[in-house]
């Protein structure tokens, strides 16, 4: 499947290729496995060097599992994750720890929970350096640089503090510093601003973007908020019920959503214009499908306003609209 592989067009090389990735969580009863939660069910996309890809979808659609799979934190059922030409699903755990974990950074959603409460900021930032045996003499300097990079200046004021002494925004900056301290190529930002105060969100996203430019990072930005995805990312990948439903350039997707689900997501972006306040917007009814036993056809069938007979029985393929645009919907092909 050639989905999303657009390296020939941009001229940039693919940093990460995710191919037909499946992450199924087994449901155990007594001694046997009675079924699987298909949290990620056949996902393919690519991330090029220096690119920001937003993965957008509602709660429970598998975004976080996808992020964990890409970071190497959950066992993969099938498929490949190819990073710099190396299939990490075939690597032994030790190599993942020693090589891959240096190349990929993770920024989590909850800045309070993401910090070991018993360590000082210096120790927290020093941990990745210690684990990857980055020289003692460089250690202090790296920590200070990292703190300066994320705008916690002067760093001396922060290094001896404990996480509970900092605010959520400051902690998220520390988390970003920690994700970047090993100079990774790819950063997974798993809803990095959704737990922060609204006033801080743009600030933190701008900071991530600034650092992306400075260090030439590729970023996978996971969010349920299309508005920030539009502001922040080059490309958007829309995820629904464990599958990707639409891939395209951020601008194109926001301008004209093709998939009914994307359309619904765009419809719920808050509109700042007070004249539109009385307009009742179209929202999807119903619930996302059960991921243990997903419906045979398109997974959006119960909620889709354009549902056709074909949708109920045959699962739509990823349909290529143009070189950059893919959509998984029968409306755009036979």
């Amino acid at each position: 499947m050639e989905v999303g592989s657009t390296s020939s067009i941009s001229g940039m090389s693919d940093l990460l290729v995710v191919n037909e990735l499946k992450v199924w969580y087994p449901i155990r009863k007594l001694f046997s496995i009675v079924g699987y939660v298909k949290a990620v069910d056949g996902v393919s996309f690519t991330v090029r060097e220096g690119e920001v890809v937003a993965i957008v979808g509602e709660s429970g659609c598998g975004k976080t599992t996808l992020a964990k799979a890409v970071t190497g934190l959950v066992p993969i059922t099938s498929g490949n994750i190819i990073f710099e030409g190396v299939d990490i699903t075939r690597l032994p755990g030790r190599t993942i720890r020693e090589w891959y974990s240096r190349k990929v950074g993770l920024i989590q959603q909850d800045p309070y929970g993401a910090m070991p409460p018993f360590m000082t900021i210096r120790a927290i930032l020093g941990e990745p350096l210690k684990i990857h045996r980055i020289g003692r003499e460089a250690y202090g300097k790296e920590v200070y640089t990292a703190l300066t990079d994320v705008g916690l200046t002067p760093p001396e004021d922060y290094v001896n503090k404990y996480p509970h002494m900092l605010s959520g925004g400051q902690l998220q900056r520390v988390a970003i510093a920690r994700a970047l301290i090993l100079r990774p190529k790819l950063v997974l930002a798993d809803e990095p601003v959704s737990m922060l105060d609204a006033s801080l969100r743009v600030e933190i996203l701008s900071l991530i973007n600034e650092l992306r430019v400075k260090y030439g990072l590729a970023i996978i930005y996971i969010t349920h908020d299309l508005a920030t995805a539009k502001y922040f990312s080059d490309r958007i990948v829309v995820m629904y019920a464990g599958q990707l439903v639409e891939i395209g350039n951020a601008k194109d997707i926001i301008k004209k959503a093709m998939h009914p689900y994307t359309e619904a997501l765009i419809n719920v972006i808050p509109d700042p214009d007070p004249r539109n306040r009385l307009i009742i917007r179209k929202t999807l009814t119903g619930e996302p499908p059960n991921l243990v036993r997903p419906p045979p056809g398109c997974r959006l069938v119960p909620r889709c306003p354009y549902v056709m007979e074909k949708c109920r029985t045959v699962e739509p393929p990823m349909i290529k609209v143009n070189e950059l645009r893919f959509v998984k919907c029968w409306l755009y092909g036979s």
Partner: protein
Amino acid sequence: MSSAIAIRRTMLRHKSLLAGTSIITAFIFISIYAVVGIPYSEAVRMWNTLDYWEDNPKLAFPSWLNAFLSKKLPETVILSSTDGGVKVRQLLPFGGGVYIRVEISFNYEYDDFPSEVVLRLYASNLRTALVSLTWIKPDGGEFIVYEETISSEYRYYSISADRRFQTQYIKYVTEKLGESPSYDISPEIALFANEGRSILSPDTKEVLKGRYRAVLIFRSSNSEADVDVKLSIYGKVFGLVGTDHKRRDLWLAVIWGTPIALAFGVIASVVTVFLEMIVAALSAWYGGLVDHLIQRINDVMLVLPFLPILLMISYFYRLTIWTLLIVVVVLSIFGSGIKVYRAMFLQIKEMPYIEAARAYGASNSRIVFRYMIPKVLPTSIPNIVLSVPSYVFLEAVLALLGVGDPAAITWGKVLEEAFTGGAVYRGYYHWILAPSLCLVVMALGFALIGFTLDKIFNPKLREV
């Protein structure tokens, strides 16, 4: 500097912490005093050598008891031919041997009779010798207590145990007063009582105060012979905490029991809690087969009774106090503690910061030791402190059951001897109270600290 101030402030806020810390600090000072003052091997040797204690009274009460009594109990008086005595040595004419007269005189001003009177003779160069002891009371009454031919260099003669003298004396009193006494006059009473009618009843007998004289006559055919005398009039009070049935000063047991109890309790509780935490963390972190294995072993160990196994081990192997410590630790690791910590670790395992650590490449052992254990450490510190006294008590209980180091000087060992010596029913309360009070006060100290720390570390408990 700021942490010192913080500690002081916490101390002042929580008076119980201050009290507990003072108690434990006092015990620590006693331990240092014991360890520095008397090396352990020396202390053990002293404790188990009976000769060392021969100048102490048996089962004496603490001296300070006299401050609360109207009738003063006697202290011990040790007299000898060189100290408090006058020795005259005469050679008999025509090579007839030697005549030695030792006169010992002393004042006896106590209100009660001594507990025991013992005469020790240290002779030299004798083939045989005739020895006699004459006792002269302050009122001039005098009688021969003892007469014997000796042939050994060392002669231990307990007047208190001399039945012959006792019967003779009772006969003598009966003749003198024309009435026989209503009880068996013991030799100590015979030696020190006023020989009026008051001696006839145990309720009216009284001490004759004044200057006593004991005269020892020694005659040997060998003119080279010589003799030294030690007359021990054992009192009824001794030292700060009294003595036991082997004349040993219980003070030694109290001060050397302290470092042993502290070391045993602290090591056992710290090591046990840490090992429990490590095993629980490994169980929770690795999950699966490892978890199953550890939990099943734990379940089995939970069911097995602790004390019978320990007793059985003690019957098969000779345990010293430190091997006992190891056995106790090994048997206590597996237990409900592992279940509790495992539950905590299962929760911690899912925390985002662990996920972050895995994402930046932390190894399994690093996650267990650097990320999981430090998280529960603060909540377990009160537990560590609170379980110290239970191990100290455990040691005492085991000593009472006869398990443990027979040579070690522990509070439990003293209690065991007091118990077998029938201390309570014979009224020697100090023998039981000295070690028990130490145990209770130490437990109190740790409990005060532990409960306060619990309040500080787990503030949710504060309101309950």
